């Protein structure tokens, strides 16, 4: 009886060891999977941030390269910007540049901010393209130094192009 019970106990303990080992292996595998999934999620989050930054740069670069906004050599034309504000709806530009963005160009040759509406031209220095949304989430914006050509005075002014994207 003693021999039998000792053998059974030994068997039981071996099975327990075995199950414990399996539990450790499974735990290790799960830990690796959790780490890889976490790593991927982190990568995706970084990609999301990178994509937003790319989008901001993309919108800025596109505007600097399109003669609809500039008059060559990436110099914005103040008369074209005023005409864009007067003629275009945001939807028309969204077909070219996508949705959820806002652009503001401020020429630094005047004090303060004077919005460039049709009747204010040329005594103005701020152009806003697509409306600024107060309650937009996940905003990301960036400033770019640019030039604005003043058509009437035939001068080129230093300016700041601010591009913002949001969700």
């Amino acid at each position: 009886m003693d021999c039998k019970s000792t053998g059974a106990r030994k068997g039981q303990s071996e099975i327990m060891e075995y199950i414990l080992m399996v539990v450790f292996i499974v735990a290790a595998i799960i830990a690796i999977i959790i780490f890889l999934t976490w790593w991927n999620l982190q990568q995706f989050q970084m990609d999301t941030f990178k994509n937003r930054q790319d989008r901001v740069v993309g919108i800025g670069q596109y505007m600097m390269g399109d003669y609809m906004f500039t008059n060559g050599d990436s110099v914005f034309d103040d008369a074209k910007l005023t005409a864009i504000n007067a003629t275009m709806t945001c939807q028309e530009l969204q077909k070219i540049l996508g949705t959820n963005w806002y652009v503001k160009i401020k020429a630094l040759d005047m004090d303060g901010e004077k919005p460039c509406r049709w009747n204010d031209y040329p005594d103005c220095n701020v152009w806003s393209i697509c409306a600024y949304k107060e309650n937009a989430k996940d905003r990301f914006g960036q400033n770019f130094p640019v030039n604005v050509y003043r058509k009437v005075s035939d001068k080129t002014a230093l300016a700041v192009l601010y591009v913002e994207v949001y969700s």
Partner: protein
Amino acid sequence: MLAVHRIFQMIFGVIVSVTILYFLITYSGDYAAVQKDRQRGEILVSFTHDARSVYVTGISTNFTHFSKYDFSSCFVNATQRSIPEIICPDSRVSGVPIETPVIFKPGKQVYIGRDSLDYGWWSFGVAEAIPSATFVFNPLESTNEGWNIMTNIVQHLPDTSDDWSVVKVSFAFCDGPQILYVCGGRACEKSDFLSILSSGPLGASFSPCTANLGKNTRLVTISASCGSNREVCVNPPNSKGVGNAFVEGSAKTYVYKDPLDLVALSVGGAEKDDFGRTGAEKIYEYKNSVHMPRLSLAAQVMSKRSVLIAGESPSECGPVYIQLAQVLDKIPSSIDYTSVSEMYDLNDNLNEAKQIYQTLLDLGCERVEYGL
């Protein structure tokens, strides 16, 4: 004899091992597929960045990352609702947005260069991303119009003669069963071919091309009667610069009104995808889907700008600005690029606007020349 617990250990071990192995294989397979998709996505995003850089700076580049995976089915698709996207029908990675106008033909390696259409008062810029190719011309009639078509196409294709370019775009003629390599027995570089074309037709007439065309060869036939021609066939344009083009295997008639239309058709070629659409059709439709709305918007902006500054300009400039605004106002907000009559009117108005803008330049009212 085996103890009961040993038998239990064996059965349990087999079950656990198989389960773990199955799980690991499935997981690593999925993980590898996700990583592959990620890389494909990164490559497409990287391509959009390069295209944008070339579009902005004008500095050409080679894009070689397409050699890693198969991107041969990819094309740029424009929709009415949002910005164009790179679509790859045979891949899970698709729909990568690309705001830069780009004439794109996939290949293992592509050369990205910038091209533009100059209207005087505005310029439509486009990046061209094309793989190595030999453009073979088959002008069936010896006319100046035919020669001009070839010149227009060649002028708007990239010059890959630089040493650093891994992509080679070259040119040749086809006469009956022969491909004529007219630059010392080799296909010509852009500048050499343009100098040959500049001498005019010189009475040279060619027979319909029956030569074997390689995979990277694009045949462009120029003829007043495009019947059963191979690949792309172009009718000479009328006096307004508008004409028809045809693509082998497609019943459609493609109206062209500028050289980029012909470039789009030539680069795309007659190769069909699984849905029966030719490469020429896809690039031509995309090109016009991005070009025409931008042209309309640019005309509206320039018209308003002209009105805005007419009163602020010297007295001799004001009336010319108003004249320019009136002509630009005739350009419709929605242009049907498939209508021959509408394209006649469009080219008429564009030519007139270009002349008026030239007057503004001559008067010193404007000082920016968009490549005039």
